[in-house]
Every structure is written in C-alpha cells, then in structure tokens.
C-alpha cells in the first residue's frame, strides 16, 4: 500500500502539472516560441527522435568516459593518499584548487590544449574534472574511517598494508564511494553539458549542442525535448547508481537496511 502510494503520488502530481500546463498554454494562447505545450514537445520529440537519440548517445558517451576517468583518478589518488601521508600533503591542496576553480573558466584552455581534433577526449576531461573531487574526498574519508581495533587486530595477525587496504579499508570506504558515485554521475553529466556548450556548434554533437542549435532556430519545442532527454538521462544515471548501491550494501549497511524497514 505504502509502496504503491509512493509511486502513484508523484506520478499523479506530474500528470496534474502537465495537464495544467497544457490547458494554460491553450487557454492563454501562449506562443510556442515562449512556452510550448507538452503535446508540442512530444511532437517535436517524435519528429526529431533519431537525431535526438544520436545526440543523447553522444552526451551519454562523454558523461560515462568522464565519470570513469574521475572514478579511476579519484579512487586511485585516494588510495595513494591513504598509503602515504606525504603524498596526501603534497597533492591534496592542488586537488582542492582544481575543485574550487570554475570549470567553465578552464574549459576553453582544455579545448585548446587537447585540440578540436580530439574533441571527445577534451569533453570527457572537462566532465571528469567536474566529477572528480566528490569521489576523491569521499573515498579518502571512507578509507580513513576503518575501525581502529580491526586495524590493530589485522596488524596483530601480521597483515600487510595491502591486506589491510583490500580487506578492511576499501570495504569500509565502499558506502562513502557509492554515495560519491551518485553525486559524481550527475556532475559528470553537468560537466559534459557545460563542455558541449563551451565547445560550440560544429564540433560537439550532444544534447547541449542541440539545445543551443534549436534555440538559435527558435525551435523551442525541440529545445524542451532535448532538455527532457537530459533530465531523463540524469534520472537514469542516478537510478543506476542507486541500484548499484542497494545491491552492494543491502545485506549489511545501515543506510540501506534502514530504508528497507
């Protein structure tokens, strides 16, 4: 009953909003170039479906490449920091600098350095830069949260640093990492969109470029259709990581167990 209610309530609300939107646009004769009705957006989506799907695939590819790069770099660096305090002291300030520098400001530089010939690599790098820091900081926190007594116990039994890392620190860090991945998945999508905006037309082929292009042609319904696909992509990314979190933590971690109660 509660589960059905939790699904039906937001669904009903969404349908109501769409109905009010449709009615308002029709009743007040709002021009399509100001605010298209949901039915107009649906028609634009159907009419441009193949090209929008190609753009969606392009944005998804950049997002995933950026995310994987951020994941590998963030976890790798966090492990290096956990194994060597000197490495952490030397490099962490630069990671913070990277985090606080607006990516929009450095994106043109990256595009110039990597070159428009390798535009997808440049876009993925920008997406990775946006997604990197939450993974790094959360994984560091997780690796440092290992139970001190268990660390002592493992040392007592002659465990090596790598055994402690593999058997204790990484599993302890897993919930922190999974939380960061949910944030970073969305951030890498934002990074990919920002990168496509900066790259401009003629090079990028993703949804952000389609939004700019449709805006220039005053095809507002197509703009909304591309926006809708971006929002759906963000939801799917979040849902996939939420599912992964549930699968990996469902048997033992409080956060998932509490949610199931």
């Amino acid at each position, binding site marked *: 009953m509660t589960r059905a209610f939790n699904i039906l309530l937001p669904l009903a609300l969404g349908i109501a909003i769409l109905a009010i939107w449709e009615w308002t646009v029709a009743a007040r004769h709002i021009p399509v170039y100001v605010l298209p009705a949901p039915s107009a957006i649906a028609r634009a989506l159907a009419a441009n479906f193949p090209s929008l799907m190609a753009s969606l695939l392009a944005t998804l590819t950049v997002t995933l490449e950026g995310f994987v790069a951020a994941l590998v770099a963030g976890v790798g660096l966090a492990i290096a920091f956990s194994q060597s305090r000197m490495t952490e002291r030397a490099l962490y300030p630069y990671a913070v600098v990277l985090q606080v520098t607006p990516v929009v400001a450095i994106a043109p530089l990256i595009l110039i350095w990597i070159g428009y010939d390798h535009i997808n690599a440049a876009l993925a790098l920008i997406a990775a830069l946006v997604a990197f820091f939450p993974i790094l900081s959360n994984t560091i926190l997780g690796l440092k949260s290992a139970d001190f*007594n268990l660390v*002592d*116990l*493992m040392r*007592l*039994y002659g465990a090596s640093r790598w*055994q402690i890392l593999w058997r204790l620190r990484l*599993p302890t860090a897993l919930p922190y990492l999974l939380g960061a991945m949910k944030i970073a998945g969305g951030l890498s999508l934002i990074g990919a969109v920002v990168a496509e905006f900066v790259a401009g037309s003629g090079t990028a082929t993703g949804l952000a470029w389609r939004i700019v292009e449709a805006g220039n042609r005053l095809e507002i319904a197509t703009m909304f259709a591309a926006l809708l696909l971006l929002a759906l992509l963000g939801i799917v990314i979040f849902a996939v990581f939420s599912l992964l979190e549930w699968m990996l933590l469902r*048997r033992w971690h409080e956060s998932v167990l509490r949610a199931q109660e």
Partner: protein
Amino acid sequence: MSLLVLNGVGKRFDNGTEALSGLSFSVADGEFVSLLGPSGCGKSTALRLIAGLIATDSGAITWSSTRPELGFVFQEPTLMPWADALTNARLPLDLKNILRADADARAIHALARMGLKDSAGAYPRELSGGMKMRVSIARALAAEPKLLLMDEPFAALDEPSRQALNDDLKRLAREDGMTVIFVTHSVMEASYLSDRVLVMSARPGRIAAEIPLPSGERDRLSAAFAESQRRVAQALLEAA
C-alpha cells in the same frame, strides 16, 4: 614456567598521560590471569603492550622463547559488517594465506565450539550481542592461539549471556591449554574465571595486589566462591 614476564613496564602517551609505571608481573604457561582495577588504570594499555600493538617506554616484556601465536578479543565484537560469521572467523587464516578449504574447516570448527555452527552464513547485524561476541572469540580461536588476550569482552552483555560465555571460555581455555590474560571490571567474573587475579592501582597502573584463587570447579552460589569474591573485592577497594 613463565610464558611471559613484564618487568618494570612504563607507558606515557603523547598527550602526557602516564598510563603505566613499573608494571611487573609474570604469567605461567596455561594460566588464566585476570587484570582487575579501576577505570583508566592502564589494563587495556597493558594488553596492547603485550600484543605488541604499542611500544613500551620503559621496562621490558620477555617471552619464554619466541612470542607465541596470539589471539585478541576486544570489548566490542569488532566484526567486519560486510562479511558473514564464517568470513569473520576466518580472518586470521586468510591473512596468513592459508588454503581456503583448510581455513574454512578451521573457522567452522571454531564457530561450532562457540555454538554457532548454524549461524556461519549470518551477517553481524543478524546476530545478537552475545552471538557477535561468540564470533569474535571464534575468530581468535581459529588462529589457534597459545595466548589469548581479552579486553573486557563481556562488559556490554546481559548477565545470562555473560555467565554462559564465562562458562564456555573457561571450558575452551582448559581444553586447549590456552594461557589467558583477561581484563575485567567485574569482581565476580575475575573470581570465577581466574587462577590468579592481579589487582591494579589507579593511574599510573601497577600491580597493587596478587590474589591466587583455589583450583578446581567453582560454584557461583557456594560459600567458597563468595569468600574468593570477598578477597578480590577487598583488594580492589584497597588498591583504589
């Protein structure tokens, strides 16, 4: 024959706290010794020094030969929440890279000895406090330790669980010929389990009294046991 001797051991922490000063005692092979004393007197520090988890500042800890295989049980069960009881019990063997089949057999045997054979696949969250502590002890037993160090392992348990675990621990120590150093706040527990109770003074800790207890079976309701408890309690009051 002494398994280990602590001679004038002292420990001061970085924050300036002097936990131990001139701590001296010996433990015989196969003996069950309890360390009893007021909170903060350095009982746990003494155990960690013996385990080699921290270093002494003064004095020496000497072993009769090479340091034997150790087991350690903390006040909390200290289990890996992401691993089932079998994997937790197998931990010391996994760290020594013992073949999985052998390690599984030894861990299951240890769990069975603690009455948990049917709970090998259970995760810590699915176990009661007493059962978690049993897994913790099984993990220590799986390593087949010669010396078992226990740091107030039953302090958080209800009285029936505590008494049941006391009985099991006593039986296991006798069956295996294990030497046990047991830290506790409980006069009753120390009196019931131990061959000898070492009462420590307030910080900085040292041995204030040594009370050998009669050998043989103990009945918690007997007059002889009450007399043992009285002697231990008296020594604790005087040490405080």
